[in-house]
């Protein structure tokens, strides 16, 4: 049983538009694997990382997933960032009964037996953030600008938020929804609009689900147009330490982000995580090693690798089904200092939510956190019909030709 | 002025110019005649370096220019009027003439004698070269070649498309230029009368070879016209 190696797949874009975010996740996964190997591997086997580059190309994600599972016979895959990439590989994982660890916060509304979601569901990020902004300490916002890039995650999150806000008595007229195309880089008019909206009465806050590259021009414009956090705070769900690397944060002090992890969190687990990462980046001469940063998806990746290891050890097998069974209830002391637990049923982590304000040095000042870990609600209660959904992935759906033609249409 | 010896030229597999040797003396007009497709233009293009010479040598005075780039040859003093005008269509007439002055300093004015010779160019200074009529373009091409004051003027069927009165002017001008004694002129022509009246020397080409040559005055006597018949 001992000796030999076993392959694990790493499926993150190293080129194309998503490389900007995903490259570090590949590195952190490799770091965790190296650590595990240094301690003797898993079940006596060394892990052999199998890194491929799906190049931010969604069909290529599916192809690479198939290759990892069926050709290279990896026992688990750590990967994906965008929802569409996950949606693209999902059928492949289900068909071939593979195992995917997905480390990024996302819009929910999905459960798969073959996927473990180590990032946040909306109720572990978006809702607490909005609640905070509504509170006295958050500034007591009454008017809301929901600003995002025009694709599924922002649209879904905003839909959920809209329902949530309504449930809190916010009027339709007090919500402004605004979307920009991918790669949008000119936020002049949008910020002017926000200014106008906010001057029409009541305290206003902005919820930003702007994606990736557009954040830098957005924040630069925000700073230059003098929209201060004390007047109109902006809370973002896709902006972490890495994204702020490219921005001069002095004018942004006070704007917020909600995550399950911040690099600035003071916890022994975090100190060692940061130290390990710094050492690893330096040893591997990674770009940017002079200013090693950690962020939430990196933490989620790290948790994922370790939880998988624990589950394998519990199952005493690399077999997908056994590992899936063993994952339920796994716990791990995350770098955030919280002991995260994998839910017994819904394949999501219980995570604490932190809200941080941007500091002048590009780090976050944690101003609020949940008392303890929050259970994920992949099926948002704010979407009609979800109350009936089971909080558990269904067993592998056996797909066969239906005896009768698919249920009557309409 | 120009000495060509043992020149060979190929297009792909076909042998176009076969072992040509001749001289173009200063102060004289040398005309080259030949039927369609015998390789006259190819010869001139080889002299200009537009197509690289395969074997043989080309000398301008004492300098060997066999393998020089075209612009070096222009600097050595060759002016070229190609067949088919080859003006710069989207440059104005003035700019076309300025291109002709490329080897001179930027402030050099366009020599006025060009406008005396081709008054239409003066009228059309601001018009784009490509908009000119065929004959006007031909005049522009000649004017452009003369602008920099070359030592050797190479003309490929320069009278094509030009009205009779201006052909006469050109004829006079070429004679004046040659008789100044400085300039050598190599003229390719199919227009027999024009060629004959200008030629100090003549050469007849056939299938890439020079099959006859002599003094211009002897062209009629030597039945050159018959050599050109099919």
């Amino acid at each position, binding site marked *: 049983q001992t000796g030999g190696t076993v392959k694990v797949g790493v499926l993150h874009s190293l080129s194309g538009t998503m490389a900007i975010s995903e490259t570090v996740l590949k590195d952190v996964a490799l770091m965790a694997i190296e650590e595990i190997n240094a301690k003797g591997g898993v079940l006596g086997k060394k892990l052999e990382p199998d890194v491929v580059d799906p190049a931010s190309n969604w069909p290529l994600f599916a192809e690479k997933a198939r290759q990892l599972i069926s050709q290279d016979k990896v026992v688990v895959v750590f990967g994906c960032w965008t929802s569409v990439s996950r949606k693209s590989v999902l059928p492949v994982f289900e068909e071939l009964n593979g195992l995917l660890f997905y480390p990024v916060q996302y819009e929910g509304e999905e459960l798969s037996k073959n996927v473990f979601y180590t990032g946040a569901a909306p109720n572990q990020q978006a809702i607490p953030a909005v609640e905070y902004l509504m509170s006295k300490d958050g500034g007591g916002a009454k008017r809301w600008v929901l600003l995002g890039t025009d694709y599924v995650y922002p649209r879904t999150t905003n839909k959920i938020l809209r329902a949530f806000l309504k449930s809190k008595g916010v009027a339709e007229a007090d919500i402004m929804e605004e979307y920009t195309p991918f790669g949008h880089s000119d936020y002049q008019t949008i910020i002017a609009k926000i200014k106008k909206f906010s001057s029409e009465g009541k305290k206003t806050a902005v919820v930003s689900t702007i994606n990736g590259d557009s954040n830098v021009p957005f924040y630069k414009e925000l700073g230059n147009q003098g929209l201060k956090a004390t007047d109109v705070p902006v809370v973002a769900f896709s902006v972490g330490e890495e994204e702020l690397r490219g921005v001069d944060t002095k004018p942004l002090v006070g704007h917020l982000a909600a995550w399950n992890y911040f690099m600035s969190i003071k916890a022994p687990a975090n100190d060692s995580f940061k130290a390990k990462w710094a050492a690893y980046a330096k040893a591997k001469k990674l770009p940017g090693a002079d200013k090693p940063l950690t962020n939430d998806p990196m933490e989620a990746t790290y948790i994922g690798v370790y939880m998988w290891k624990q589950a394998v050890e519990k199952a005493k097998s690399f077999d997908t089904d056994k590992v899936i069974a063993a994952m339920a209830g796994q716990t791990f002391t995350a770098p955030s200092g919280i002991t995260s637990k994998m839910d017994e049923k819904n394949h999501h982590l219980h995570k604490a939510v932190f809200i941080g304000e941007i500091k002048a040095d590009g780090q976050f000042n944690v101003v609020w956190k949940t008392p303890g870990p929050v259970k994920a609600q992949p099926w948002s209660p704010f979407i009609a019909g979800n109350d009936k959904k089971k909080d558990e992935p269904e067993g592998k759906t056996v797909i066969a030709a239906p005896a009768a033609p698919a249920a009557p249409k309409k | 002025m120009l000495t060509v010896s043992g020149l060979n030229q190929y297009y792909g597999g076909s042998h176009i110019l076969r072992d040509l040797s001749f001289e173009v003396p200063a102060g004289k007009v040398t005309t080259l005649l030949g039927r369609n497709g015998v390789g006259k233009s190819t010869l001139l293009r080889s002299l200009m370096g537009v197509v690289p010479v395969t074997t043989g040598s080309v000398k301008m005075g004492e300098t060997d220019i066999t393998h020089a780039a075209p612009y070096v040859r222009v600097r050595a003093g060759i002016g070229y009027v190609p067949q088919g005008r080859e003006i710069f269509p989207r440059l104005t007439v003035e700019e076309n003439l300025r291109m002709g002055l490329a080897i001179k300093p930027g402030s050099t004015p366009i020599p006025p004698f060009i406008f005396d010779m081709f008054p239409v160019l003066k009228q059309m200074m601001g018009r784009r070269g490509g908009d000119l009529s065929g004959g006007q373009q031909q005049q522009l091409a000649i004017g452009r070649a003369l602008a920099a004051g070359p030592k050797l003027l190479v003309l490929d069927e320069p009278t094509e498309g030009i*009205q009779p009165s201006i052909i006469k002017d050109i004829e006079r001008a070429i004679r004046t230029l040659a008789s100044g004694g400085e300039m050598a002129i190599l003229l390719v022509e199919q227009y027999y009368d024009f060629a004959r009246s200008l030629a100090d020397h003549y050469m007849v080409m056939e299938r890439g070879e020079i099959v006859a040559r002599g003094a211009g005055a002897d062209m009629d006597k030597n039945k050159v016209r018959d050599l050109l018949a099919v």
Partner: protein
Amino acid sequence: MKREDPEVAHWRDAPRPWPWWPPARSPEAAAAAAVAAQPSSDASFGRSVDGELDLTKGVVLYLDGITVSFDGFRALNNLTLTVDAGELRCIIGPNGAGKTTMMDVITGKTRPDSGTAFFGQTIDLTRLAENQIAHAGIGRKFQKPTIFAHHTVFENLELSMKADKRVRKTLFAKLSSAERDRIAMTLAQIRLTDSADRQAGLLSHGQKQWLEIGMLLMQEPKLLLLDEPVAGMSDDETERTAELFLSLAGTHSLVVVEHDMKFVETIAKKVTVLHEGSVLAEGSLADVQNDPRVIEVYLGR
């Protein structure tokens, strides 16, 4: 048959996909719109003019009061000219007189600012697109030889051959042996039999001239417009060209522009001299050659 400014009329008549669609303006767009002006596109293409060439008055081409200006410069100035059916007309005139521009107007390449151009009695050339004019029976040889450089000489002739030129027909077209013979004949006529399979772009200047004449012959037009056909040909070949043209006259109408006076002498019956966009003189060659104005502006002393 007087009409208002043809271009204005043309805009008004041009079909618009939607009411707010602006009318076409540039000559190119106008020409393109003319294509659409035909009752229908592909299927009935050309039919409306086919076979309707009406030569009852014995006149093949009427140009009346044609004016063309480019940025204020009048290339054609109220030009009026008629060519009789079967006639071989020579047109001479100084460089820039407007000869090529006139041909552009006849073939639809340039739209006149004003004036009318009729092919026979009925076909209004100012309203047709280039291909329709070609189809109606006007063929043209350009001043600068234009041939299909990447096609073989044979294919050049094949493509210009008179045939049904609709998309569907060319897709399934097969060369009949009669057509093959015609191409072979023309090849012989233009002395390019040996070069039939060579790429046309590689021909020498003179050979291209001949090829273009050959293409024109294949097209079997009723009216041939020839812009400096013998430029770049040797004297001998010029003579052969002259013979060819003379043999065509009568059955065809020809309009020849040339500066080679010897050539004009051999073929000309009636000569028109253009100058500054209008007719300066017209008559027999001898008359014209002795006209002092013609000597002044064109022939020189």
